């Protein structure tokens, strides 16, 4: 879907992105996390084609974002951390303008505007001026503008900042819905607990480098397998055998709780649950397992920082092994 190869971006005196490479699976939500100054916003700007990296490239399918940015933007939506709206325009005109600016044909434009408004729960506010909306609704309108052309990829930089808990909850639901509708999202945020609600993948940046990029527990792998958590009303000695017989893999049992991996969608899950109940298990809870993202993230950062670090190397001394551009200094 989207592939980042050897991205390098410098600011005077420091390297913001240091040979960053990764790829993002389609129909996933990748949580982009990292401490302040890790390079998250710079990475998103480069991925959106808004900033020209010193080296490396970003491919959206086969489109090189920095060679043909206009073409890439037709398949991409971006919401920056500090976004603005045309406060004098109504919600409908804001969306209509974005639809026109994205080159949507006139015969499809009204439908696109309506669909974007409905997706973000703004259909009943089309006549309201953008400047009169609440913070949460403004956020929704900004996302609606970013998706009005049905992009394959959406990049969101701190979309939940400044939102109250209710608006954050609503935003999470919106992002999940967009993913379910086939879009791929990359979301940068500091609020890890919230990211955990909807993210399928975790990408951790620190000092311009990737510390971790993996699928989250609870998120389906490429083959559709995901980790589940089963809690019984009371412990059962044959729990591991029953789960294995029902198709569970990598089963781990601790008292009345079991974690295991299973494959399949909602129907397969329902079937699995039925078989477990038929096997006589007193099921108290059955759900996709959740990792504690915050603990994992903090442990990762701590681990990276306790490693012995020598004196910082000046540009050229150590970076150029992965640089796409530039001789060794």
């Amino acid at each position, binding site marked *: 879907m989207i592939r980042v190869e050897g991205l390098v971006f*410098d600011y*005077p*005196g*420091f*390297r913001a992105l*240091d040979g960053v*490479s*990764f*790829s993002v*699976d389609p129909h996933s939500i990748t949580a982009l996390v990292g401490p302040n100054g890790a390079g998250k916003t710079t990475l998103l700007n480069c991925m*959106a084609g*808004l*900033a*020209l990296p*010193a080296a490396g490239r970003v491919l959206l399918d086969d489109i090189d974002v*920095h*060679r043909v*940015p*206009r073409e890439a*933007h037709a398949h991409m939506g*971006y919401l*920056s951390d*500090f*976004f*603005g*709206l*045309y406060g*004098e325009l109504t919600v409908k005109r804001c969306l209509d*303008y*974005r639809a*026109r*600016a994205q*080159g949507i044909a006139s015969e499809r434009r009204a439908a696109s505007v309506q669909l974007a408004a409905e997706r973000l729960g703004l259909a009943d506010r089309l006549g309201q001026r953008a400047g009169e909306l609440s913070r949460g609704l403004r956020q929704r309108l900004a996302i609606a*503008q*970013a998706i009005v052309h049905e992009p394959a990829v959406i990049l969101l930089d701190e979309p939940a900042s400044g939102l109250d808990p209710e608006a954050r909850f609503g935003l999470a639901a919106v992002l999940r819905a967009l993913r379910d509708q086939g879009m791929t999202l990359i979301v940068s945020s500091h609020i890890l607990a919230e990211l955990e609600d909807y993210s399928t*993948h975790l990408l951790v940046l620190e*000092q*311009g*480098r*990737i*510390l*971790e*990029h993996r*699928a989250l527990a609870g998120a389906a792998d490429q083959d559709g397998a995901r980790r589940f958590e089963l809690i019984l009303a009371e412990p059962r000695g044959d729990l591991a055998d029953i789960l294995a017989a029902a198709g569970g893999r990598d089963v781990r049992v601790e008292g009345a709780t079991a974690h295991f991996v299973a494959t399949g969608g909602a129907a397969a899950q329902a079937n699995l649950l039925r078989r477990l109940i038929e096997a006589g298990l007193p099921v108290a809870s059955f759900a996709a397992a959740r990792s504690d993202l915050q603990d994992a993230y903090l442990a990762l950062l701590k681990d*990276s920082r306790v*490693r*012995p*670090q*020598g*004196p*910082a*190397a*000046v*540009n050229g*001394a*150590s*970076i150029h092994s992965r640089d796409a*551009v*530039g*001789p060794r200094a």
Partner: protein
Amino acid sequence: MNPEFLRNLWIEMTLPRLIAVPLVLGALFLLAWYVGGKDLGEVSQAAKWLYYIIMLLWGTRRAAAALGDELSNRTWDSQRMSALGPWSMAWGKLFGATSYVWYCALICLAVMALKSDQAWQVFLLHPIAGATALAVSLLVMLLQRGRTRASSRRSSLIAQALGIVVGVLLSPAGPGLLDLGHIEVSFMIDWYGLEARPNNFFLAAAAGFLAWALFAVYRALCADLQKPVWPWAWTLFSIYVIAFFAGFTDASAKAAGVDWLVVAVPIAAVLFYVAIFADTKDSVRYRWFLLSLGSGDLARAARLMPLWLPSLPLMAGLALALGLRTDQADPARIQPLFHDFFRFADVQVLPATAWAGAAILFALRDLLILLFLNFGKRARSPDLAALIYLAILYWVIPAILGFLGRGWTQALFLPWPLEGPWVAIGAPLAEVTVLALFTWRRWQALAPRVLPADLRKAQPQAA
């Protein structure tokens, strides 16, 4: 319709505003009619003044705000993410953000046309001057964006001021020598041997500069929208401007010793200084420009190339050509740039080539001063500081030295061939060498610091 133009129309052209303008302007014209003794000519004159007040004071402000508002309202990134190309964006912004200004200005032009003794060529100059002023304002905002907060009030004022200057220069009042508005055309302009009436010629010239201003806005937007383009436009514009002004060295001028190079050299120098001040002097950009060149990635190098790079050899080539020609010909036949100065110095033989070489080195020194100041870690208004330093170096210190008595020290501050070519060249060369060393060290200090290799090895494989 162009989406950017349409969006601006939605904001600018509301019904109450559309109704208000004819009423306000109508009242002003009525007042002018009474005050002017019920003379329609006075109303036309008032309309002209109003037109320029509207276009130059208000229009340039709106044109600058076409970008400044987007930046301050944080909508610019969202615009850059659209599928709109640079050309659509350019004219959508330029004529959309100023649509209401144009609405007012066109009413003034219509009233002006009611009773005007101006030739149609002169009349057409008004909208051309106005449009060029707006384009220059927007262009200056775009050029400032890479360096400072273009949304700031200072950026807007600079853009507005330059727009006003260009607007006045291209208006019929601009070429004061011709006074096109009232001239009885009794002479012809000789341009490369082509004879043209002043009105026709000035209209064509103004239209040419308008086209360049619009094209410049387009190119500046290409850079902002990350559209890859090859950097030939500035070079072509430089050649155009030099060729345009050099065309006025007609037979009578040549007989008086005015060579076309005498016209071309100062223009090339002005363009060089415009380039070094207008361009962003970002240390990172210079680094990656050099690395892109070194790795043979010419496309990337072209996007990163400093604007002054083609201007320097152009100016140097023309200056050296002028010096050589002056030295090889009878110096008295060719007016040097500082004719009065040399006559005052009672110099019989002009070492013009040494003078040209020194001038080139001083230009290089000035560039290095700018880069040195811009590469400072806490640089605040480095371009303004450079302007002040250059004023001191070129005017204040030489004036003091002039009082103290001339000598070789003058060669440290001005192209000064009077002490011989070695001093003339050696003094600025020493300055260039020292400044290049300091600038290089400062630039190296800004090299990005990266993490040690052991952390790199510790990184997990990305999915």
